[in-house]
């Protein structure tokens, strides 16, 4: 019999629809894997009963001959940044520990409506701030991948969606939600050998997603392959009148239109991404990608994104600025942690609660954000960063006059050992150097696995597309996927 937990979204959906197995069998299999993987710390809360409940509903619908949703029978992991009604939602923070929303985020509602079930709430970097999953209040997630050097160094699953990447890669879930502010879907996907897409800004509603940087935050799927991402993104996306930045556009049937024949398509290769000191193995994987896309019929063109080197500094002004304001609501007054020292007044309560409730990385970004917005510094930092953001977006607009999609590495390195970079915040921030420009421009971008490096660790290639052209991105991703033949899996050690 098939090992159900090796299956992805499409295979499960089809198998359930065909009656090859029941949704309940699938949910039970993944629940068992989740329960046996505590060592990975991918979940903050597990909800096996929710997964079973959704599965039973799908099985009942099938028995009754009802039409099944696009995710029917697929149990998924939910990043703990999405508010889930009646289930603790923490953003991996102490300040929201024990917070149980009375509401369900739009994206998770959409997924449940499509027939998906919830295995649990996935660990992440605290408030999605981090690139290694080491900033969670609930302890770091450990990647299922290890270097084959026998040292058993615990590896980073990437961040911030590190619980999501680990869960999918370790077969604890066939798919998971992620959110991407400056690479938080793509980088962990690349680190763990899975596929993830950040759609165009506004495709997925932000309503009910704990905010990090509102102008950048975008939800997206993380799964084994491009097809699974297409199916799941179709279920997640859609106009939401409750989000003023939501795109009022119909959701295309991305899955049905998947096509890896790239004849007539042009792929741009940005010369500025070929930075000095980039890992030669990363450059090699990029060259492989170029060859595969040519093989798929695409024409490869050299393009320039001249403001690339300013994108990361601009991102680390804009994102913390927005975060410093977005996180002001966690003040101990209405919900979450309250630290009220004996005889304390309001200001003391704020200070004590926030000192206790936020981790170091969150505090660092609140301080940076507060600084760049303060009187006398606003123009020098925030205004300049916004100008750069506009220039970065213009770079892409110009480039897309010459090509249909852009191919680049997802990250400058493969995964690293936990703790290896945590003392060097700037080095950590550099991890997002290839991911951030597309975030600033609000463009769809995907990471697909393209092989392993000499240490046996996965590498990812990134495809960036025009606004609203998720299809073009996924088609190019599919072309790479078909040619890369990525079959590596982490050895089970947990």
């Amino acid at each position, binding site marked *: 019999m098939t090992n159900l937990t090796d299956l992805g979204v499409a295979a499960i959906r089809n198998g359930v629809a065909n009656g090859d197995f029941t949704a309940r069998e699938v949910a039970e299999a993944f629940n068992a894997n989740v329960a046996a993987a505590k060592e990975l710390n991918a979940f903050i809360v597990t909800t096996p009963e929710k997964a079973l409940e959704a599965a039973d509903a799908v099985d009942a619908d099938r028995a009754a001959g009802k039409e099944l949703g696009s995710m029917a029978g697929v149990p998924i992991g939910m990043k703990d940044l999405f508010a889930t009604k009646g289930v603790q939602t923490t953003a991996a923070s102490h300040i929201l520990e024990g917070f149980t929303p009375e509401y369900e985020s739009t994206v998770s509602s959409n997924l449940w409506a499509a027939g998906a079930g919830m295995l649990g709430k996935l660990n992440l970097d605290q408030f999605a701030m981090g690139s290694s999953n080491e900033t969670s209040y609930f302890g770091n997630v450990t990647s299922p991948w290890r270097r084959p050097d026998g040292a058993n160094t615990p590896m980073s699953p990437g961040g911030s969606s590190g619980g999501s990447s680990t869960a999918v890669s370790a077969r604890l879930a066939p798919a998971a939600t992620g959110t991407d502010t400056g690479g938080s879907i793509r980088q962990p996907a690349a680190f763990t050998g899975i596929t993830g897409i950040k759609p165009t800004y506004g495709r997925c509603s932000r*309503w009910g997603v704990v905010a990090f940087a509102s102008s950048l935050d975008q939800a997206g799927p993380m799964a084994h392959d491009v097809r699974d991402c297409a199916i799941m993104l179709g279920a997640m996306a859609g106009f939401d009148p409750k989000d003023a930045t939501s795109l009022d556009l119909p959701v295309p049937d991305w899955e049905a239109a998947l096509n890896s024949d790239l004849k007539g398509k042009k792929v741009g290769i940005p010369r500025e991404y070929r930075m000095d000191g980039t890992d030669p193995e990363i450059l090699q994987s990029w060259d492989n990608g170029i060859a595969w896309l040519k093989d798929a019929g695409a024409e490869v063109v050299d393009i320039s994104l001249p403001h690339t080197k300013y994108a990361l500094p601009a991102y680390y002004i804009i994102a913390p600025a*927005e975060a410093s*304001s977005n996180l002001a609501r966690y003040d101990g007054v209405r919900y979450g942690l309250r630290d009220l020292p004996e005889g304390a007044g309001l200001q003391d309560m704020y200070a004590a609660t926030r000192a206790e409730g936020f981790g170091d990385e969150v505090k660092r970004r609140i301080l940076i954000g507060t600084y760049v917005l*303060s009187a006398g510094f606003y123009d020098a930092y925030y205004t300049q960063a916004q100008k750069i953001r506009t220039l970065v977006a213009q770079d892409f607009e110009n480039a897309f006059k010459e090509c249909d999609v852009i191919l680049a590495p997802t990250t400058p390195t493969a995964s690293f050992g936990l703790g290896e970079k945590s003392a060097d915040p700037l080095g950590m921030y550099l991890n997002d150097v290839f991911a951030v420009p597309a975030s600033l421009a609000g463009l769809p971008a995907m990471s697909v696995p393209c092989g392993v490096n000499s240490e046996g660790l996965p590498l990812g290639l990134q495809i960036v597309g025009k606004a609203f052209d998720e299809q073009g991105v996924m088609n190019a991703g599919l072309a790479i996927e078909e040619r890369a033949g990525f079959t590596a899996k982490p050895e089970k050690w947990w």
Partner: protein
Amino acid sequence: MSNYRIQGATGEWEVVIGLEVHAQITSASKLFSGADTTFGAEPNTQVSLIDAAMPGMLPVPNAECIRQAVRTGMAIEAEINTYSRFDRKNYFYADLPQGYQISQLYHPIVGEGQLLIEKDEKAGIPEDKIIGIERIHVEQDAGKLMHDQHPTMSYVDLNRCGVALMEIVSKPDMTSPAEAGAYVRKLRSILRYVGSCDGNMEQGSMRADVNVSVRKVGSTELGTRTETKNVNSVRFVMAVIESEVRRQVDLIEDGGEVVQETRLYDPDKNETRSMRSKEDAHDYRYFPDPDLLPVNLEDSFLAECRASLPELPDAKRTRYIEELGLSEYNAAVLTVEVETFARFETLLGITAKHLGKPESEIATTVANWSMSTAPGVVKSLGDEANLEYATAEAQAAILGMQGAGDISGSQAKEIYEIVLKTGREPAEIAETEGLKQLSDTGAIETEIDKILEANQDKVEQYKAGKDKLFGFFVGQTMKAMQGKANPQVVNELLKGKLG
């Protein structure tokens, strides 16, 4: 120029005043959430997830609030900015769940405009004056802290949190308490005409921050200003200025310096006191709200806003004077409040229809009736008057009978009294209660003939030139008719018979 001067020990001083008026926008729901805005509800019963700033909640602009701000801008002849944007003003306070107020610092929706305050010599406004308006921006109100509910704790009511406000910022164009008072009254009148704010200062739906500085007469430099926050009546606005001016002049003349600061007004002591100075002022870290897109106003929307504006106070007052022939005083009084002119215009319309006469011909009569006669009757009746019976129909019926000469002015009053007490029909009252004046020439002629017959001597004297005796004959006739004859008819008949 105002002649308001403050006599100091070192000479004469004048005052420079600017006002920031916060006006609550009339709308069923809040600026960025669907929560109700009704005043006086139980604490925390009108709070959405957005107002409480729950994790992941997002603001969605209420189009009606935008529309009302635009209409208000048009009513003060202001520039409407087709591109505007919301900014966050960041600070921590228990009545501000988000930790920031959504406001408009950099790109307000309404730019420069103006309003006219009318000359009022008694109040010290020697001539009409234009007061400039700097801008109107839209923002969220905060919640309310309640300190009197518990001995050691404060409570928070978030009902008001997120309600839409317009902040209407004047230029520093006012130079006396009277001008400031007139400005607030005129602004309130315009807001009520437009329907964008109920102007109810007692309930806090309109309140003013009063900026005051003083300088020596003849100086062109502005002095250091203070800002007194949240003043909630016209009287208090004027009192704040009086007291602040005195305080500043005394301070400077005693060798001190005015400090730029925020102050609070204590109506019981009639004085302002310091709240916080510029040194410990917040750094609000304004930046564009990333949850919201810029507001782009389309031509069709602007046209709809403009078409929906009613006739405004200045235009109405001019029309009353020029087209209806009302006195300046009547026109001014009738046009201040929406309720007043609405009552007047309805009554005028129905009465004109009853009489088949143009409105301009009877406007003064109707104005006098609605400004003085009718309120007089109501007042004299006190509790006996049932105002439900004070319908425009009933009053128009009375004015119609009076205009047709069927009843006299005093009969009109008597009939109205009965209407207010009983709700009976005016025509029926006139008939049943004998409250009609006779215009039947036959009956009057008979009486006149008798009187002339009985007073032959006086007739002779009159014909010999003693004109004053005409009044005697009128009086006798009216008496014989028990006061019910139409005096005009009596006059005409007597003139005919006496030659």
